[in-house]
């Protein structure tokens, strides 16, 4: 087990280095981070030269990559090209916001999806089952950004008709969020719609997995054995079937969660949430490689870590799985 983890981590480091070099090249070859500054009449030639020197912009790309690597390790991801703004504090802030969004959405999604999946499987071919299936098919075919926009439109119109503001449709906080309970309420009203959007997307996937794995377990031999030895149905379903059916879901949730921590790019963009996703999009739009690279390293690391978590959790929950 330990060797498995170590080998995977070592391999991941290699993957990360390779990927970061490729992407660094990508970003550096085609974007000029000071292009924006060059067009400003107020920016003097000396300022630009100083930036070029500080960021080694005139060196060949492999050299710049090494400088960047050095900066990342010793200097907390370094600073942005323009403005020399430290990257780490920004990343920490947006990560906090993304965590609030993603944890709320995923917890709720798991609860709902597990309920739907289990009930669908126990009442296979019932009206409920077909409704749930239809819902998840439609959910999987719906672009997330469009769903987010439709919810925005809906709540804007509700506000216009009734004058009651149930949820806010943009930003993370009001102008004056207040403190204590008022702050929490304000935050909840702002996060409700983005959470709902992420939830719907996750539920569509999770409930299918849950249904499939519950069906498989319900028809397995050990459940039949449990019934045959006369256990009450409730105990068969909850203790024998349900708990085992959860195992595959753990993997899916872990992988999805790892991906989402990079920011629900689309959702955050639509709702203007100051999270990881929006940070990345803004960095891309600015053509600045350093925040893009920092974001990418954090996100890729999280994906790798959660991949590993998924594998370890699977082995822990299902003793039949062995690592070699």
């Amino acid at each position, binding site marked *: 087990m330990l060797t498995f983890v170590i080998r995977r981590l070592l391999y991941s480091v290699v993957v990360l280095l390779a990927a970061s070099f490729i992407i660094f090249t990508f970003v550096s070859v085609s974007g000029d981070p000071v292009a924006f500054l060059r067009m400003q009449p107020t920016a003097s030639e000396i300022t630009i030269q100083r930036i070029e020197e500080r960021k080694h912009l005139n060196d060949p790309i492999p050299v710049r990559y090494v400088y960047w690597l050095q900066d990342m390790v010793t200097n907390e991801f370094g600073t942005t090209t323009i403005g020399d703004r430290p990257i780490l504090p920004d990343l920490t802030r947006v990560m906090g916001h993304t965590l609030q969004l993603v944890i709320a959405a995923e917890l709720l999604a798991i609860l709902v999806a597990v309920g739907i999946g289990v009930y669908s499987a126990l009442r296979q071919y019932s009206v409920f089952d077909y409704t749930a299936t239809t819902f998840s098919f439609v959910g999987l*075919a*719906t672009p997330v950004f469009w769903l987010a926009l439709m919810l925005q439109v809906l709540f804007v119109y509700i506000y216009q008709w009734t004058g009651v503001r149930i949820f806010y449709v943009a930003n993370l906080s009001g102008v004056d969020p207040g403190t204590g309970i008022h702050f929490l309420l304000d935050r909840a009203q702002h996060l409700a719609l983005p959470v709902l959007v992420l939830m719907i997307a996750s539920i569509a996937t999770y409930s299918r997995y849950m249904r499939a794995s519950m069906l498989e377990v319900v028809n397995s031999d050990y459940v039949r054995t449990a019934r045959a030895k006369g256990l009450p149905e409730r105990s068969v379903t909850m203790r024998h079937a349900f708990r085992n059916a959860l195992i595959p879901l753990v993997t899916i949730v872990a992988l999805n969660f790892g991906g989402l921590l990079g920011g629900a790019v689309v959702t955050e963009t639509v709702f203007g949430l100051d999270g990881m996703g929006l940070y990345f999009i803004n960095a891309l739009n600015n053509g600045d490689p350093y925040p893009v690279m920092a*974001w990418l390293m954090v996100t890729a690391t999280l994906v790798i870590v959660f991949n590993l978590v998924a594998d370890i959790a699977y082995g822990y929950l299902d003793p039949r799985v062995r690592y070699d």
Partner: protein
Amino acid sequence: MPADDQLAQSREELHVGGLGSSSRPAAARAGTGSIVLPEEPSGAGMDLQLSYESGVELKARSQWAYARMRFFRHRLAVASIVVLILISLVAIFAKQIAPYGYDELDLNNIAAPPTLKDHHWFGTDLLGRDYLSRVIFGVRTSLWVAVFVAVLSTLIGTTLGAIAGYYGGTVDNLLMRFTDLILTLPGLAVLLTAAAYLGSSDSEFGPITLTQPVKVGLILAFLFWTGLARIVRGVFLSLREKEFVEAAKASGASDMRIIIRHILPNCVGPIVVTMTLIIATAILVEAALSFLGFGIQPPNPALGSLIADGQVQGFETWWLVTFPGLVIVVIALAVNFVGDGLRDALDPTQRIRA
């Protein structure tokens, strides 16, 4: 009761799950004969007449005839195919069908809500552009890109998967490491980065001009082939040790012939199913990219950028956001249903899990 009946029923029950299967168990029960037969005889030429001891006339059908039967029994899939064909026809004949041009202004109807008047079924935007026409042209680009991505990534995935699975060794190792790499990276991020830095305008390589939508398609295809490569590799790995391959080798068939004639036909099911899934995913991902401004760039129309256009114009003109999105949902849903039907038809064993 003849055993055949139970067999037919239990076979029906394998096709569980998914939409539209509600009718199927009932249909199986309704067939009171000992085996469920379709009413019309199909493809008389290749069918053999067999008769069982029970006296029931049976037709032996080719694998494909059975697949066709199973597909046409999936009503939603058939309906979806019809919808998709209609949408594709509209997209192909966009210039003839669309009531207005893509950038044509109708200054008498500015920001008109959806109405039958002047064919503005999907309304117009603040410049008086007809959104029905814009959506039709958008579907044309988006569908084209999606099909391009699917074909290209299927070709790459199948070829590399087949080579890796058949020969193993270095190719196999490289392939698996590469798919691992792609699976470990945050997909959307790589796509966005690539699209942002590589795909924002047309580019010329000597005599070849890559138009911007083609470049977006290439970037998508580059990330989408890995799943299929793994599937094809798996099939090849398990089949290359089989007796029929050995027999082919013994009779002097070349590697090429064994790969293409003997093993590849066994992967047709998964390949076709994965291809439809790629089409659906490509449409959704391309729409998201275009919406974020990193996908297909104006002046090329695309469904995602139409929605972004609509969003910029404010909440008052809700129809600008609604209709392009609905069209995306309809297309993606239809493609998924067709994929479902194809999986039923081509690979019945997979049904139990989904």
